[in-house]
């Protein structure tokens, strides 16, 4: 089931794309469609111009690091048809990941691609002004990558277990008595709102 109420089936988009531009869509699920990264601009332009999908706006662009590859995710919005397409592109090269820029089709990609370049280190070929957006130019690395500085060998960033969780029995929670029951939100006795010394 597509995860958004107006999101359309990725398989449908893949079929239509492959009929118009043979071999462009590589994988698809009910939620998204993946296209070949070298032909991204072609796919975006076709979706933008087609009456069937009418992808008028690039509403969101972001990238995800899956350790062995990056995925750049495009959320395309049609206003007339009120539907959303999720398009993905896979980038395998970790050293200089490169994706064609979507700026020639969507001007709204200008700052979003700069943000992805800054935080994830993905180069967008054909972007008119690809500079870091938030961080300074000499900043080492790209922080949203999972192997960003300070993460040791064999470890990944991200929370692995809950702070209150029991290591030996991961399904059991510690400190059950500290969990406030619903509806018991009275002020504790002697509590004045100021920390006592």
């Amino acid at each position, binding site marked *: 089931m597509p*995860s*958004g*109420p*107006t*999101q359309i089936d990725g398989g449908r988009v893949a079929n239509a794309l492959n009929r118009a531009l043979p071999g462009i869509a590589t994988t698809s699920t009910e*939620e998204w469609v993946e296209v070949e990264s070298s032909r991204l601009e072609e796919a975006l332009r076709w979706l933008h111009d087609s009456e069937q999908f009418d992808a*008028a*706006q*690039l*509403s*969101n662009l*972001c990238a*995800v*690091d899956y350790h062995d590859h990056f995925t750049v*995710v495009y*959320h395309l919005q049609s*206003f007339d048809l*009120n539907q*959303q397409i*999720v398009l993905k592109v896979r980038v395998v090269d970790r050293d200089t990941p490169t994706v064609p820029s979507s700026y020639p089709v*969507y*001007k*709204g*990609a*200008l*700052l*979003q691609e700069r*943000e992805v370049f800054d*935080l994830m280190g993905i180069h967008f070929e054909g972007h008119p002004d690809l500079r870091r*957006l*938030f*961080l*300074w130019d000499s900043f080492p690395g790209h*922080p*949203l990558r999972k192997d*960003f500085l300070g993460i040791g060998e064999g470890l990944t*960033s*991200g*929370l*692995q*277990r*809950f702070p*209150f*969780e029991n290591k030996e029995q991961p*399904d059991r*929670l510690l400190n059950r008595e500290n*969990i406030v029951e*619903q509806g018991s*939100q009275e002020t504790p006795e002697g509590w004045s709102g100021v920390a006592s010394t």
Partner: protein
Amino acid sequence: MTTPTEPYVLNIGPQHPSTHGVFRIRVVMDGERIQDIDMIVGYLHRSMEKLAEERTYTQNIPFTDRADYLAAMSGNLGLCLAAERLARVEVPERASYLRVIFAELQRIASHAMANGTLVSDAGAWQTPLLYMFREREKILDLFEMTCGARLTTNYMRIGGVAFEPPPEFWPALLELVDELPERISEYEELLTQNEIFIARTRDIGVISPEDAINGSLVGPALRGSGVPWDLRKAEPYCIYDRMEFDVPIGRNGDVYDRFMVRLAETRESVKIIRQAVENIPDGSHKTDIPLALRPAPGEVYGRVEGPRGELGFYLVSDGGPAPYRFHIRAPSLINLSLLRELARGASLSDAVVTLGSIDIVVGEIDR
């Protein structure tokens, strides 16, 4: 004979009243006209998206307060809706009503601030701004009454809202709702026919509907250009499908239209709040969710219509306690995509008004 001129570089910000936050613009000027503009952001960058990967979904809710600090409730709502869809959590009806009431109150407060600072940028120094702060103040009082905070509310939770509003909330809300239409009319009388205000805003910063769509503009900036796109209508969340309200749009896509769209939207928000207060059912304000919430692996793009437009949350779960990827689609940042094209050829004073009409919040730009 014309005197030869030479371009010069003017730096505005990062601390400047007309940039509405820690936001820096480097402008290349030729006399009074702007040749080129470059925005330098990141002074408020707190790497929320990275930090979020090490916090549980509930622990991430405070980040949404601090992203768009003028519309914390909308941010809370966006994240909670996305996480609920990811974890398949049902929300009690009363909670949905409470969420709508608070989100709309937040919209009024945020629009009051946006319009107030815009008028301030246009030259009406401080007086209209403080007028509009009067209502905002009352709304923030209501927030404080309910959740103890005025700006960083952290009110909504996955599965509902954190607290039931106290008994004194409801009469205060009704009083405010009765008072607001009158106040909005006051601003309309004060500003919309004002010759100076019209001269400063009409046909300034015009965005065509095609450019607005292609440039990923959302919210009042898009609707000001005449595109009737509102997620509350297009993809109704919570209980917006039961509410009767209109989507105001502009005609010319100039600064004046964006101002008027915001003003008209506050009226619609009052309508929505009134309907929500009338129909709010009894019941629980939140459902119990497992303390150790681990959504199944998958991804979701949840979005709400915030005061600045489509506020999206792209969450990827790997089945762990924290999101594998947490991306905020920040309308403030993306609405600036057309800034360079808008500013080129304009005078500096017009560019400042245009920037004010787009309504940016730097906390959300930088995250």
